[in-house]
């Protein structure tokens, strides 16, 4: 027998009689409030900037990241930064990116996390290797809990996806919180309060 068979046989022999699969909670009834979400994001070290149109982002970013800062953006129609069209660009060429500006799919009220996945991510390394990260999320795309979040994510629709909750952090040195461990040193969330399609 090969390893696989040895292990599977031992598992099948030793596993107990079938136990029932529990049922998950019903979807939340209440809506997720934008204010509550903003407070959550701030509590985990992020900065929230309310905007009413995507164009509001331009001046905010230009003042904080003046040239020669390197900006990469996935937001169409904004006169900001480079587009990454080739997913095969080696990840380490992104090491010099000062700010990555990306569209998040939705946010989770209970923990301030924002979902991003391969469908909207030009390079998987980008949100981690950039010095600073900015995510745009619509206040209409907020869910109360993680249970609700997974209801939105039908299996098999993405190759890679990540919940990002705040900037990278560590407390490994005597439990002192330090923001900016290996990943971004800051996270800005542009919270859009009107429909971007208008």
């Amino acid at each position, binding site marked *: 027998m090969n390893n696989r068979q040895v292990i599977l046989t031992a598992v099948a022999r030793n596993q107990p009689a079938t136990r029932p699969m529990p049922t998950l909670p019903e979807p939340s009834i209440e809506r997720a409030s934008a204010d509550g979400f903003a407070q959550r994001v701030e509590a985990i070290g992020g900065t929230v900037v309310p905007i009413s149109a995507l164009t509001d982002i331009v001046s905010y970013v230009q003042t904080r990241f003046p040239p020669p800062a390197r900006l990469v953006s996935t937001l169409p129609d904004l006169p900001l930064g480079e587009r990454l069209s080739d997913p095969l660009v080696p990840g380490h060429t992104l090491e010099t990116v000062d700010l990555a500006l990306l569209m998040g799919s939705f946010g989770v009220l209970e923990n301030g996390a924002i979902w991003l996945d391969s469908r909207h991510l030009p390079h998987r390394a980008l949100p981690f290797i950039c010095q600073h990260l900015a995510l745009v999320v619509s206040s209409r795309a907020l869910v109360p*809990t993680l249970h609700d979040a997974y209801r939105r994510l039908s299996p098999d629709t993405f190759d890679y996806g990540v919940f*990002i909750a705040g900037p990278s952090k560590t407390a490994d040195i005597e439990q002192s919180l330090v923001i900016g461990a290996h990943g971004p040193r800051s996270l800005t969330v542009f919270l859009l309060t009107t429909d971007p399609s208008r």
Partner: protein
Amino acid sequence: MSQRFVSHAQAASQFLTDEARTDWHDETLWFIRQKRDKSAHALPEWEALRELASGIKDHALSELSTYLTQFEQNALANGIQVHWAATAAEHNQIVLDIIRQQTGPAAPRVVKSKSMLTEECHLNEFLIKHGVEVVDTDLGERIVQLRQEAPSHIVLPAIHLKKADVSATFQQHLGTEAGNEDPQYLTEAARHHLREKFVSASVAITGVNFAIAETGGFVVCTNEGNADLGVHLADVHIACLGIEKVIPRQEHLGVFLRLLARSATGQPITTYSSHFVRPRAGQVMHIILVDNGRSTQLGRPEFRNSLKCIRCGACFNTCPVYRRSGGHSYHNAVAGPIGSILAPNLDMRKNADLPFASTLCGSCTNVCPVKINIHEQLWHWRQTLTAEGLAPPAKTVAMKGMAWVLGHPTVYRLSGRIGRWVMQHVPALVNNRLNPWYKGRDMPSPPTQSFGEWYDKNRSRV
């Protein structure tokens, strides 16, 4: 790390010699326990969530062979290569073969994010012996790696160290300023040091928090972003997981991710919860499914529950013994209460002392997010080990003596009287180092009469 064997009790008494440091360790972990409490109490449905998590794990373990097969099929269909390792040695060999295949004779550079499984298998030592440079990238793990130590906690690997220790280590290895103990400064130094490793590594190894049968994908949680940085920059990703990590459906992640970080550090979720389903274009992805004793543990009804563990560390932070003895005293990759259950399954003889490193107070069981009956399992191990003749000798002698005394009523009565007389008149005879009970305790002042004597005298009056 192949020094002379030191038992938990011996290592703990060593740890306790620095009283101030022990107090600090104790308080730091208790503080984390309190953060967990605050976070848990903020969710009215907390207990229902624990119940749910426990139920999903019970179900998953009861059909583990089916879920493992399903996971494998889906992972293969996703373009991931799947390997099976029955033992730690096989696991290590598979990792080495993949690395060799990737890099040929060139000296390979490997970055690794936190994985208790690879600690359990002693992968680092194995790879280094075979000429592979392997760099731990979690900050805490890098600190202990530079010091040639093992992590002392599954979530907080360097929790036993103070700023001054880290400062000295970084001065020696990374050239930071002597005496600069500022955590911000030290973290920045590590950031630069590790970025250089990330961009030059060709292979990245990660652990796995949850593997999903339904999708063939898996989830890795970090706060630092080190797992993702490693994986997305390297050509090859090797993910190592114990076979018990498989859960049936993606939606079950909602339950586990709500519990994990809250139980671990009190955060509502870790900064990054990364879902890997298919390799990116040009990347090769491997999964190694490791048994290493897990299928055996699955067949032991009284210890099976330990396989539900999601490695949050809450039982460590609350444990009065762990807090005052430190992770290294457990001489096992996973320390603390859960480690004391898992370790004897790996090596009963070597780890026979660990189930005795507990007060059986049950605090671990109360905080465990998947409702493992930790303290009961510790008690079961004591029975099993004693029956096998493997209990620590001091305990066995004392227990045998006690059993004899309890079995002989006259001796029992007489010995009680003698004991009380001794404690009253010559307390030094029991308050000394030869009495294992005196270690770390003061003997109570004895009553003048036993309950039996009191009862005999007062019975007539009732």
